[in-house]
């Protein structure tokens, strides 16, 4: 690739990102600033940053690849994700903001305040951390692949650059750097999505022509369920709409809000931006598939080549430069927030849950950021071919581990700490079971059970986790109700203004 325009646009994007990030050091001096933006987040930053972190590199590369291989089925992920944003704002936005306070600015903090249990805080922190280690490795690897493609410096150097860029500015500037760079990165992502959508439609002569070309080769791809069983598409809808509530890089922002009034415009902005980003996901995959059906392009060896192939064949270099900058922005924005949330669990949540708070917390905040980045990099190197699968387990862990606690736990007065712990254990155990059974092939080799008819295992683990939460709440109800202070519960569940 190594087109000078693309190289310089990438260098400029990385330089601006690093500049904004490093400058944020000045405003990241305390834990509350480093992990919670000093709880002064406003609607514009909330909206754009939510979109930027939700639309990871997968949305720009993996998503179009899935449209190429499964057709409309993949759209049950991206559009469900867009619908998941307002659902997340609605279900947990005000409730979490109501729990926020000077000493409550992480999700495990909020769980501790709601349930009064260090064990519940620990179990939620653990599921967040495990999911982040898996998910972050996938982001670093994706960044290395993109940087190697653009700079052509060799995979080893690209990996080193990716690790340094991904780590340095979140380490120095914390969430302040993360959110400010996300606004810049989100703007580039939006701009590139709109442009690429237009070019994709133009390449095929319009959506109707693209649909007709694909249907002439494989009619199933343009049908509402794509080439997958309907149950898989529906289970993706369930996971990517409701499962969004469990994504810590999205929900933890509600604890950073200046006031609950910021939610009203934030929800509009985040949803609209994600909707526009989803257009790239859809249009590129369809456009490349149509050209393959028409014989203008050779069939792709790997579906993930859909975006690079489209950029190399149908767009001018300047647009390819903008889109590659958008891809690296999508990866960095997601990775920086994961690093920050992960560092918060190790600096604050787990030590507090164990009754051993860390002194010199800012030193540890930055140290743990570096350690998590290095650990995720090591996971990425060791797993290599499994890294995309680790991304799946990361998403599943967050969805199954946090959705019951945040959705049921914040709304159901009877919910208790035992239910949080039990549902988290089921989420971690279930995610690991299906990782071994499906991704590592234990089902085929040793006959491990997996759901049939295409039902997504992530959806099953999420359902099991939700049911466990309900059962545990009913079983342990009496002890919990007697132990809890009624007034404290009313404040925690009021959803009103912050204390």
């Amino acid at each position, binding site marked *: 690739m190594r087109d000078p325009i693309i190289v310089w646009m990438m260098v400029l994007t990385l330089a601006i990102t690093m500049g904004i990030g490093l400058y944020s050091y000045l405003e990241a001096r305390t834990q509350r600033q480093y992990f919670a933006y000093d709880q002064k987040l406003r609607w514009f930053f909330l909206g754009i940053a939510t979109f930027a972190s939700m639309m990871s590199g997968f949305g720009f590369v993996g998503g179009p690849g899935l449209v190429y291989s499964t057709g409309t089925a993949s759209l049950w992920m991206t559009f469900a994700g867009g619908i998941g944003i307002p659902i997340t704002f609605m279900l947990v936005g005000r409730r979490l903001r109501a729990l926020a306070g000077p000493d409550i600015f992480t999700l495990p903090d909020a769980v501790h305040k709601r349930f009064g249990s260090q064990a519940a805080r620990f179990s939620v922190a653990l599921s967040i951390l495990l999911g982040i280690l898996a998910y972050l490795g996938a982001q670093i690897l994706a960044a290395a692949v993109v940087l190697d493609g653009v700079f052509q410096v060799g995979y080893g150097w690209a990996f080193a650059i990716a690790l340094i860029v991904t780590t340095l500015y979140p380490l120095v500037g914390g969430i302040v750097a993360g959110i400010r760079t996300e606004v810049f990165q989100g703007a580039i992502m939006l701009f590139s999505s709109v442009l690429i959508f237009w070019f994709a439609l133009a390449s095929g002569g319009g*959506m109707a022509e693209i649909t007709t070309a694909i249907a002439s080769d494989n009619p199933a791809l343009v049908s509402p369920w794509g080439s997958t069983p309907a149950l898989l598409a529906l289970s993706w809808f369930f996971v990517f709409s409701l499962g969004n509530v469990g994504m810590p890089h999205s929900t933890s922002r509600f604890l950073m809000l200046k006031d609950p*009034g910021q939610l009203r415009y934030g929800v509009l902005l985040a949803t609209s931006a994600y909707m526009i980003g989803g257009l790239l996901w859809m249009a590129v995959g369809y456009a490349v598939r149509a050209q393959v059906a028409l014989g203008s392009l050779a069939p792709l060896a790997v579906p993930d080549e859909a975006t690079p192939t489209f950029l190399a064949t149908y767009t001018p270099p300047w647009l390819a430069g903008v889109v590659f900058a958008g891809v690296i922005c999508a990866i960095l924005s997601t990775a920086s927030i994961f690093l920050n949330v992960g560092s918060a669990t190790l600096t604050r949540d787990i030590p507090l849950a164990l009754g051993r708070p860390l002194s010199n917390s800012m030193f540890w905040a930055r140290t743990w950021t570096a350690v998590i980045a290095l650990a995720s990099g090591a996971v990425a190197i060791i797993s290599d071919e499994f890294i995309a699968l680790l991304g799946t387990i990361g998403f599943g862990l967050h969805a199954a581990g946090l959705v019951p606690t945040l959705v049921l736990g914040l709304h159901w007065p009877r919910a208790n700490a035992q239910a949080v712990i039990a549902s988290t254990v089921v989420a971690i155990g279930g995610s690991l079971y299906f990782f071994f059974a499906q991704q590592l092939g234990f089902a085929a080799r040793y006959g491990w059970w997996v759901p049939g008819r295409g039902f997504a295992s992530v959806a099953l683990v999420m359902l099991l986790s939700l049911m466990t939460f309900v059962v545990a709440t009913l079983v342990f109800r009496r002890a919990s109700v007697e132990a809890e202070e009624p007034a404290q519960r009313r404040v925690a569940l009021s959803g009103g203004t912050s204390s």
Partner: protein
Amino acid sequence: MVGGLGTLAGLGLVRRRQPLTWIATGVVFAGFFIGMNGLLRNESVVVRSPEDTLLGFQPGTAYLIYGIWVLAFFTLAGGFSLLFNRLGDGDRRSS
């Protein structure tokens, strides 16, 4: 799906003692129902020419995209924005 999305949209739109908001919710509910019904009735339609498409897509997919997803985007995001606005007003009055 129709029930869930319709209820969520209604949560954002409905205001007590304001009949117009109930009508809006009914329209949204009907939209989701028409979208799902159109999806199921047209899921097997084969596209052979651009004239067979509906707004650029296979007819069943068009109902899915315009009747469910686009409608859900606008009603949920807009409805919840209105709801947060209303709750914010309530907060201000009580404080």
